[in-house]
């Protein structure tokens, strides 16, 4: 068999995935921590203040990477949900469901920091702007997936139902964004523009890109550590899980 295909099959085996994820985790957390430290140093210290928003614009280094992550993770969850529904791969079910809380966390960060940014800039904590509203709906979609997953007793059936909901959600998301935009322009004129493309100079840009990469690592680390625990729980009747439980006891 092709070595890559063989590796993929091995990856689908829970004990192999558990060990591999355990080995990767410290590296992922380390890279995430270094990236976040570097990105925030660049963003909060090195980048010059914005000529319109002065130092308040620095919230961008948290807000925008979180917004990107909230969409990226939803996409990741839906793709894994699709794989789980079509090919019934156990690992995909676990990954899709482990991604949901992380995605909800990033969506919440995005909304909260957006609110903290909006207060000094627009003079209000919340505005029914198209992006904000879509992001709020996204948070509800995440909560729906998590809620459905935890409401069904059988873990695998729960994962499949929640994955199906995630797929419905990904169809719904562009519709929501488009309709909210249309609704908003109907009620009021142009919305507040945050920043034009000309405003961002390279000293402001590179910390943003580093933060975008670092949050990907943080997501990967959190995802793998969640997936490991979920696998352990799901496979608790299997021999490899027992061995891990007994090994932890002697070391503890």
């Amino acid at each position, binding site marked *: 068999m092709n070595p890559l295909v063989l590796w993929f099959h091995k990856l689908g085996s829970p004990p192999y995935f558990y060990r591999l994820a355990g080995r990767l985790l410290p590296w992922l957390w380390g890279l995430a921590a270094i990236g976040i430290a570097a990105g925030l140093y660049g963003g909060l210290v090195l980048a010059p203040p914005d000529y319109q928003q002065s130092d308040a614009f620095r919230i961008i280094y948290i807000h925008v990477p979180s917004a990107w992550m909230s969409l990226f993770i939803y996409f990741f969850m839906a793709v894994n949900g699709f794989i789980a529904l079509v090919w019934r791969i156990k690992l995909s079910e676990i990954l899709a469901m482990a991604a949901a809380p992380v995605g909800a966390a990033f969506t919440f960060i995005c909304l909260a920091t957006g609110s903290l940014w909006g207060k000094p800039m627009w003079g209000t904590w919340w505005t029914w702007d198209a992006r904000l509203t879509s992001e709020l709906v996204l948070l509800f979609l995440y909560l729906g997936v998590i809620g*459905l997953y935890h409401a*069904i007793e059988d873990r695998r*059936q729960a994962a*499949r139902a929640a994955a*199906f*909901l995630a797929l419905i959600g990904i169809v*719904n998301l562009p519709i929501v964004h488009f309709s909210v935009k249309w609704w908003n322009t109907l009620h009021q004129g142009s919305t507040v523009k945050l920043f034009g493309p000309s405003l961002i100079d390279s000293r402001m840009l590179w910390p943003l890109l580093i933060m975008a990469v670092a949050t990907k690592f943080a997501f990967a680390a959190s995802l793998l550590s969640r997936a490991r625990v979920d696998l352990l729980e799901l496979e608790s009747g299997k021999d490899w899980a027992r061995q891990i439980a007994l090994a932890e006891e002697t070391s503890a």
Partner: protein
Amino acid sequence: MSHGTALGACRALIVRDLALLWRRRGDALNPALFAVMVIMLFPFALGPEPQMLGRIAAGTVLVALLLAGLLSLDALFRSDLEDGSLEQLVLSPHPLPLLLACKIAVHWLTTALPLLLAAPLLGELLFLPPQVLGTLMAALALSTPLLSLIGAVCVALTVGMRRSGMLLALLVLPLYVPVLIFAAGACDAAQQGLPVAAPLLWLGAALVLALVLAPLACAAALRISLS
């Protein structure tokens, strides 16, 4: 063994569902009663000035009907699950999406249609401007089947649960947002004397799409939650 035609199965299912509902015809008025009570609360909360109420009338009626529909959604598969006929439906040799489409249609006829008929009355209670009424009715006629179809998919996902009320609302409401926006957009345009065709056409397009896709999705969801 002969199974009869799919059309015959659909007819039998519709007749059975209608007969079951006719036995408990008092329940059919509950959603409409709920909508009237919700509408009644608004003048108490906002004051009785006709101008103020007239401005929010269309949107309030839409939201009240949406909530009433949400309340009745839970009953779509509830009794069928309890007496085991839902599993027979899934096992039947006839296409499940078609059978579910019949069930959803009956559900719409018996829960949403009374609401639709009550809508002019509700509008009158809130001093709905007369030029908006036609648009409101058109928007409701297009959006209530859409809400029933979308809702049915979510009900199918939660069908096995004992207490699904709050969760169902959480699943359904994000999906209802675009429908509400377009229906309210049409009413808003009518109120300002602008052309209303565009949002209504969007609703119609969405309805056609949902008529085809929602029964399929509903069937898939039902198979997942009954597996």
